[in-house]
């Protein structure tokens, strides 16, 4: 391999050709500060506009300063990352950015998690020498995301996520000069756009310009209302990430503490979305088998491949972008909505609570779930199946608000009956998990034989598009997996072009699946965090005694007592949905 010799801050080093100064410096422990740059290694996600100019360094013999993030190293290059010229320029640039920023850090939703705030601290900025006009824009509130673009620093990370990774194309830079800002076209509101609310813009925004709609106060109010019974469900990916908000190592599983914290907060019942994930598998797996059986019987009209439908951003994506394919996805509702539906019927009846007196709160790694629970088809007489969806981050702030010392909490168990789950339900939290859970059940239902193995490593990983063929006792089932909507688009294009021979495809909007969701603790561009969360999910699966959804005793009980069988009329009414052409 070709290498290059250079000197950074008087330290000679050898790096591979094509590396940037930033990468080279990192390899010898020199941390050059960056603001707009963000790279998720191994996921092919990089934002490198060279726009913020914070990473400028002095290169001997060069007329002007060089941005370390996009300048390639060259043989004999002599770099000074902390010369007075570089430091002065870096501080001036950050002062300029701050001079066009509201600087309401004390009350900003992003305080403590803001990369601009960190940068000002890192550079020791104690005075802003430049004062003048500040950009003012109207705040844009949608069902899930708030845009407060006065705080936008034009790093373009959201734009890169929205356009290159998700191919949704809602956010882009508009206007010129001092008035440039990232916005939907014609400054329309997000809720008038084709935004899917995947929240990846929120996940990467370095400042408080993009945040989720905060519903913690609504939950506090519900909890303090004695006339309400408030129950909570918590999604699989939350337990693999919540600990980070309390200083724990990424990948620390905090299931027991999570339950304990929710109970301390005053929820009357603490349930698990994983239970509903098992239910989803029963419905979706059955739907898959029905379609496959029809297909094998020679039915030419059967819609294959079947696509998963657990991810609300993905649902909105195909409703906008591929309405012609709206008959292909499974009609099964997402676990969040199945839970809400069962809670406000089966559970409410069982407990003798009136629907309007039951409040269902969900804790989700996702911001799109806020939008999903507000969709009209998930309401009965205006009363939603799920009342409030909080993100992992909102839950963390609620726990702090309630003076709960999270790390000292003991481990507690979920309540029954909606708290029992299998390992299959847990792995919904990562890319590949839903389809692996479905395979575990569909295999046994189809072949009537026990699975020879439970771990399907061929379905796991972080590659954007994966495919595998699973042998259903002589019948090869072709599986596709995509995470990130750009990858989903590619698979959908293959289907539209008739080039697909998949029987089933799992799609998750967020890179990494729900562990990388827009409502999770901020990863700040560190892909290792996502990988550790993924490992934690599989670890939780491995710890479970029951790892196949159809073996969940409470699921079996639910069908016996209430639903009858999968895809029954009642199941259809409560657990399935329809899709709309939103073009």
């Amino acid at each position: 391999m070709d290498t290059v010799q250079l000197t950074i801050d008087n330290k000679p080093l050898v790096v591979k050709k094509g590396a940037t100064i930033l990468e080279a410096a990192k390899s010898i422990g020199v941390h050059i500060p960056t603001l707009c740059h963000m790279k998720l290694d191994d996921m092919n996600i990089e934002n490198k506009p060279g726009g913020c100019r914070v990473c400028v360094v002095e290169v001997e013999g060069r007329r002007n300063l060089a941005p370390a993030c996009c300048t390639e190293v060259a043989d004999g290059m002599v770099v000074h990352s902390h010369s007075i010229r570089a430091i002065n320029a870096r501080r001036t640039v950050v002062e300029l950015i701050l001079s066009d920023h509201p600087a309401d850090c004390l009350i900003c939703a992003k305080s403590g998690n803001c990369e601009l705030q960190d940068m000002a601290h890192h550079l020791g900025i104690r005075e802003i020498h430049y004062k003048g006009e500040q950009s003012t824009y109207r705040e844009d509130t949608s069902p899930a995301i708030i845009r407060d673009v006065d705080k936008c620093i034009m790093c373009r990370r959201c734009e890169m996520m929205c356009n290159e990774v998700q191919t949704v194309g809602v956010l882009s830079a508009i206007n010129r000069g001092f008035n440039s800002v990232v916005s939907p076209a014609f400054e329309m509101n997000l809720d008038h756009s084709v935004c899917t609310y995947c929240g990846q813009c929120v996940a990467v925004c370095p400042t408080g310009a993009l945040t989720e709609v905060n519903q913690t106060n609504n939950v506090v109010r519900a909890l303090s209302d004695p006339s309400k019974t408030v129950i909570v469900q918590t999604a699989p990916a939350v337990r693999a990430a919540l600990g980070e908000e309390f200083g724990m190592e990424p990948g620390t599983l905090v299931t027991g503490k999570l339950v304990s914290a929710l109970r301390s907060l005053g929820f009357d019942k603490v349930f698990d979305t994983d239970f509903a994930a098992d239910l989803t598998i029963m419905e979706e797996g059955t739907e898959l088998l029905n379609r496959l059986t029809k297909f094998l019987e020679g039915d030419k009209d059967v819609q294959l491949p079947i696509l998963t439908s657990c991810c609300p951003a993905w649902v909105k994506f195909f409703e906008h972008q591929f309405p012609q394919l709206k008959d292909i996805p499974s009609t099964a509702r997402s676990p969040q909505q199945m839970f809400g539906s069962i809670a406000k019927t089966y559970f409410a009846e069982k407990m003798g609570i009136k629907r309007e007196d039951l409040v269902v709160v969900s804790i989700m790694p996702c911001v799109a779930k806020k939008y999903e629970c507000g969709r009209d088809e998930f309401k009965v007489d205006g009363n939603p199946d799920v009342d409030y969806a909080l993100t992992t981050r909102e839950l963390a702030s609620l726990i702090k608000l309630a003076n709960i010392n999270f790390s000292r909490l003991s481990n507690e168990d979920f309540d029954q009956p909606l708290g029992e789950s299998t390992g299959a339900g847990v792995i919904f939290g990562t890319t590949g998990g839903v389809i692996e859970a479905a395979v575990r059940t569909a295999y046994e239902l189809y072949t009537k034989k026990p699975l020879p193995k439970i771990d399907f490593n061929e379905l796991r990983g972080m590659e954007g598009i994966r495919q595998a063929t699973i042998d259903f006792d002589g019948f090869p089932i072709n599986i596709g997996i995509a995470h990130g909507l750009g990858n989903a688009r590619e698979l959908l294009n293959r289907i539209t072009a008739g080039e697909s021979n998949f029987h089933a495809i799992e799609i998750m909007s967020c890179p990494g699946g729900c562990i990388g969701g827009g409502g999770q603790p901020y990863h700040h561009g560190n892909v290792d965090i996502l990988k550790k969360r993924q490992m934690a999910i599989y670890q939780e699966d491995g710890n479970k005694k029951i790892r196949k959804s159809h073996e969940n005793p409470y699921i079996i009980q639910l069908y016996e007592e209430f639903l009858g069988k999968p895809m029954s009329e009642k199941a259809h009414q409560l657990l399935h949905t329809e899709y709309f052409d939103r073009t």
Partner: protein
Amino acid sequence: MTDYKMHLLICGGTGCKAAESDEIKKSLKNWIDELGLEDDAQVVFTGCFGFCEKGPIVKVMPDNTFYVNVKPDDAEEIVKEHLLKGRPVQRLLYTDPVSKKAISDSKGMNFYKKQLRIALRNCGFINPESIDEYISRDGYMALGKCLGELTPDETIKEIKDSGLRGRGGGGFPTGLKWEITRNVESDEKYVVCNADEGDPGAFMDRSILEGDPHSVIEAMAICGYCIGAENGLVYIRAEYPLAIERLKIALNQAREYGLLGEDILGTGFNFEIDIRLGAGAFVCGEETALIHSMEGLRGEPTFKPPFPSVSGYLGKPTNVNNVETFANIPVILNKGASWFSKIGTEKSKGTKVFALAGKINNVGLIEVPMGTTLREVIYDIGGGIKDGKEFKSVQTGGPSGGCLTKDFLDTPIDYDNLIKAGSMMGSGGMIVMDEDDCMVSIAKFYLEFTLEESCGKCSPCRIGNKRLHEILENITNGNGKEEDLERLKLLSNVIKDTSLCGLGQSSPNPVLSTILNFEDEYLAHVNEGKCPAGQCKALLKYEIIEDLCTGCTLCFRNCPVGAITGERRQPHYIDQSLCIKCGVCYEKCKFNAIRLS
């Protein structure tokens, strides 16, 4: 041009068209028809003559009679007197401002004497809508020569030997650029002509495309042959409708003549040119921004490398040259590199076109050999400062050039000297300022332009220029402090040092050069609250001189805000707290009793 005895060339450039040259043409034609001269005399629209100050211009050939400031009503006299009777119309001739003598032949005018027109060689001579006229002046000869006699490498060598450097502002050696693009392996390459001329007041490229579009088309085809491209694109701003129209006509003619398209001149070489319209963003003159704009993306620059020569339009190797650069190519190949390289200075060969503007007598478009001094341009060609005022400064290089003082008047103009002097060549804007210009306001004016035209991508340019402008605004409003000067310098240097593209890297130049060269003026603003040039309204005071005031009440009656009080026949008084400094009283007073201080 063989059948007619006489040709009447009328400037058909945008400027003269705005001054009714269409009407003049119609009127001349009518009188020619009326008097039965239609077989003897032809009226032709040409490109810009350059002497815009005196436009519209009508030139009668073969007499070489140069009529200035012609109006539609003058047509009758020109036809009846000159065409019919052979007597030039004396009153329409140019009068030399010094000798006061009428000059009939443009060669005798100072405006043209020191010019050498290479890029503008056909502007004002041929009908830009006629390919035959272009061909009659050796047009497409260079293309034929390249395709027939020279290999691409030999052609590139000739361009390299000529010493031609990019006329868009960067001054990169053109031949070297072609060679780099040629040496990149690719299935597809592009030739791009940058016609996104955006400097305020500059119209070099527009005039070439309006006056001699074929020279650009020919050069682009030659470039395509050299680098191995079959497709060319002209990126031109949509505000140039006439240039676009003439370019379209020229492209169609070239296609008809087999000089564009497949198998050009039977050599197997294919080349086609398309037009891409820009929406008029200054930053799209930067080549990466230009390419993104052509691709349908936001017009903003990206980091180089990769350079367009390696990865440009649609990711393919792309050679981007400016209009004026291209216009030089056919002549160089026809007359030879050694001819061209004899013109100019050691490191800057050939000529440069400038758009001369500001407080100068002869506003217009000029082309001079590199090495001509600023003094020659301003005083000989430009005819000196308007209204006999004192020269103060000249700004070269467009909105981000520097403002030079009279100490630099004897600087020979070339790329390196202008940079050494603290300015730059840019694409050829040249604006002259006199004693009445406030240099703080001038710096503010240019900054206003760049801050509007910044794409907003990088923070120092997006926010830094805004802050520079605000500090200048404070100074011109009388709220400046002496330490603002240090702040301006510090911030300017950081913006230059950290900005992503040439726009930000040069936008503080007017600020830095005016502080360097006119520090006294800044100090007068911040320390004494005075604007020496009397331009900064906030620092001005209108006062009534008691001794001269007759109490006629004219000022009192005209003041729009009632700031003036006084009894009839008694001296009046201006209440400074009410005065909005509109200057009406000053204009109305018949007794010079109002003073500006």
